């Protein structure tokens, strides 16, 4: 059994000493300008993002360095191309190093150089050439109403295009919420009958990277993982990789302590909002949304750069039941612990005030002093009267 697994590639034996003794500053492929060191750093970063070991990073670099770059066919459906736009803005690695060095992006509806029949013919040729080996990426929803006529490329409906490409694909990845479950066009009343890729090809495993747009690094990490280990990463019941969608946003949110302490922003721009309090009461869907946004952020500009981090409630873009379904400002269903109805008073009275006993003791002492003084004064008064003349 073990030998079979080894040959399958997922646990392919690698001589780490040999790999690490290679010249790190040598370009991995002629004419591309990416050194082995840069590739190793990138793959180590990807492995870390996915919670894998450094050895997995080395494996990924090995896989990425292989002579034959794995071919990728990328289809677009009903969408805004935001997912590709998001991917274009990734910097570690940049999209060009991904598509030129790591994978072979043989066909992409919006990024391909060719046009018209030329492009489509090339796509068919590649699908034929790499049958059973290419990775299919779908972006955008698929209309099903009226025979799927609401989205066509080259005279074929999106349903036909997906089924055709899925036939010879080694792995299928849906990028974005539209490809994952229909996205914004599937929102009620869903005039085109938009559906996700999985619903078109229900008998195939589709890895879903939902999000509007998804974090490009979740996509890149999944692609590299598939290329390295020849299998898809562990998925949840919705078909999403657990490394990215295993935890609620609420669990890793930097504003979580405010939620637990009962400090909420109640309006945009109010005191709590300006103080960075929890956005739950502004409709933040973090408590019902599974994503790693607080952990990895967006835009490669540092910590805290994600919707909640910059002061807008999460709208649950990765969740079919939430995004485009629930009103943005309605309260989330808290899947962990619901906030208590009453929080401990932040201005709770501390210390011990006056007790009846203490009041009695103080009163008694004052009484004794006043009494003694009065007795003394009355004695003195008599003398004052009698000795008044002498003293004045």
């Amino acid at each position: 059994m073990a030998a079979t697994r080894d040959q399958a590639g997922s646990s392919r034996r690698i001589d780490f000493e040999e790999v690490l003794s290679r010249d790190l500053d040598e370009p991995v492929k002629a004419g591309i300008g990416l050194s082995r060191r840069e590739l190793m750093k990138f793959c180590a970063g990807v492995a870390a993002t996915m919670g894998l070991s450094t050895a997995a990073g080395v494996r990924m670099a090995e896989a990425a360095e292989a002579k034959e770059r794995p071919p990728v066919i990328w289809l677009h459906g009903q969408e805004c191309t935001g997912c590709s736009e998001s991917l274009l803005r990734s910097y570690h690695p940049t999209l060009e190093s991904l598509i030129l060095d790591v994978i072979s992006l043989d066909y992409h509806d919006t990024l391909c150089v060719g046009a018209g029949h030329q492009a489509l013919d090339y796509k068919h040729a590649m699908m034929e050439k790499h049958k059973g080996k290419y990775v299919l990426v779908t972006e955008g929803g698929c209309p099903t109403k009226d025979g799927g006529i609401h989205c066509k490329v080259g005279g074929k409906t999106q349903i036909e295009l997906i089924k055709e490409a899925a036939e010879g694909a080694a792995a299928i990845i849906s990028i974005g919420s539209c490809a994952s479950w229909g996205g914004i066009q599937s929102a009620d009343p869903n005039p085109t009958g938009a559906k996700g890729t999985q619903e078109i090809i229900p008998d195939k495993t589709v890895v879903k990277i939902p999000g509007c747009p998804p974090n490009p690094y979740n996509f890149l990490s999944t692609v590299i993982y598939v290329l390295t280990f020849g299998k898809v990463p562990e998925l949840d019941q919705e078909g999403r990789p657990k490394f990215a969608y295993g935890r609620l946003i609420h669990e890793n949110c930097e504003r979580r302590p405010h939620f637990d302490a009962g400090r909420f922003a109640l309006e945009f721009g109010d005191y709590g909002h300006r103080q960075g309090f929890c956005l739950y009461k502004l409709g933040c869907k973090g408590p019902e949304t599974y994503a790693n946004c607080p952990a990895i952020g967006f835009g490669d500009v540092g910590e805290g750069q994600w919707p909640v981090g910059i002061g807008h409630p999460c709208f649950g873009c990765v969740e079919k039941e939430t995004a485009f379904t629930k009103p943005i400002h309605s309260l989330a269903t808290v899947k962990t612990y619901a906030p208590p109805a009453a929080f401990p008073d932040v201005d709770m009275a501390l210390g011990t005030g006056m007790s009846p006993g203490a009041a009695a003791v103080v009163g008694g002492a004052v009484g004794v002093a006043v009494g003694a003084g009065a007795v003394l004064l009355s004695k003195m008064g008599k003398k004052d009267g009698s000795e008044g003349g002498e003293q004045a």
Partner: protein
Amino acid sequence: MAHTAHRLARAVITPTTIVLAVIVAIAVYFIVQRYLYGLGAVTNINPGYPWGTWVVVDIVIGTALGCGGFAMALLVYVFNRGEYHPLVRPALLGALFGYTLGGFAVLFDLGRYWQAYNLVLPWYTNLNSVMVEIALCVMAYILVLWIEFSPTVLERFGWSGLRRFVERWMFVVLALGVLLPTMHQSSLGSALLVMGTKLSPLWFTVWLPLLYVTSALAMGYAIVIFEATVVSESFDLPSEHSLLSKMSTVVGGLAAAWLVFRYGELIWRGDFGYALVGDLKAVMFWIENLLMAFAAIVLLVPAGRASKRASFLAAVALLLSGSLYRLDSYLVGYDPVGNWHYFPSVPELMVTIGVIALEILLFLIFIKAFPVLANARPAARNA
């Protein structure tokens, strides 16, 4: 030293001393509790109010009431007004117990009292600390007071050689006896400067040290008037009123100057409005000042000064005013961060009352055991 002082020839054990002793015994019981079970078991002090009655009444107010020694030393030896010398010994005796028991009471309040000896180890001394200044200065002053008082004890036991030696060097001790209280009585005010905005603007001012030392001085004279009057009235001794009424001008002048400065400074810095808001702080502020104003007016008006009763009442008013000023600036006018409350617990109060009772008790015993009072005639049966 023209005058001679005598022991008061009265029974030491009287109903008064028995009652005082019982109060002291109750206090001792609670002090034992404090050492067995800790501060929390006995007191109500808390992180918001770390200074409770044990600090504010026993030390801050207690030492101010013990400023008789300071005030009389300043008047008699620095301003060279020898005519007031008969008042020095009782004043010193009052100061002796005010300070000794105040210093002693600190040990109840120190959380880690077993570390207290580190205060006197110079290599551990933090010279930037107001608290260190107060602690070292009060310790030194207690020693000075005992030396200042020692001729009385030496006279009693007839150790004239030692007494002559002490009196030859007394000028050094007396100089210290004026210097040290000036330092730590002002530092008790400086200790409040770190409170910043926690202290109401009615009390918080950079002049706190000056207000503290001058009111302590006024209280020193007032306690001499108070104590001399109470002793002579209680034991039917010849009145010292003629001497006291001369001194009253000084007290009245000090009280008036203190008030003028306090109001002037408050108005000049623009915080007088706080006195008009009608809350507890404002009410306490007015009580303090009206008592002080009453004392100043009575003691500055010749008719008031001449009346034994009026000047006694004025002295009491001044002592109350000075004590309230300290109580207010340390507790009433102080708002810690957080919603903290404090009122002393019964055991805490009993310890404070016990300390005061012990002061009175020791004073009564000492005037009967040692030649303190100038007006106590030698009794025939106690020659």
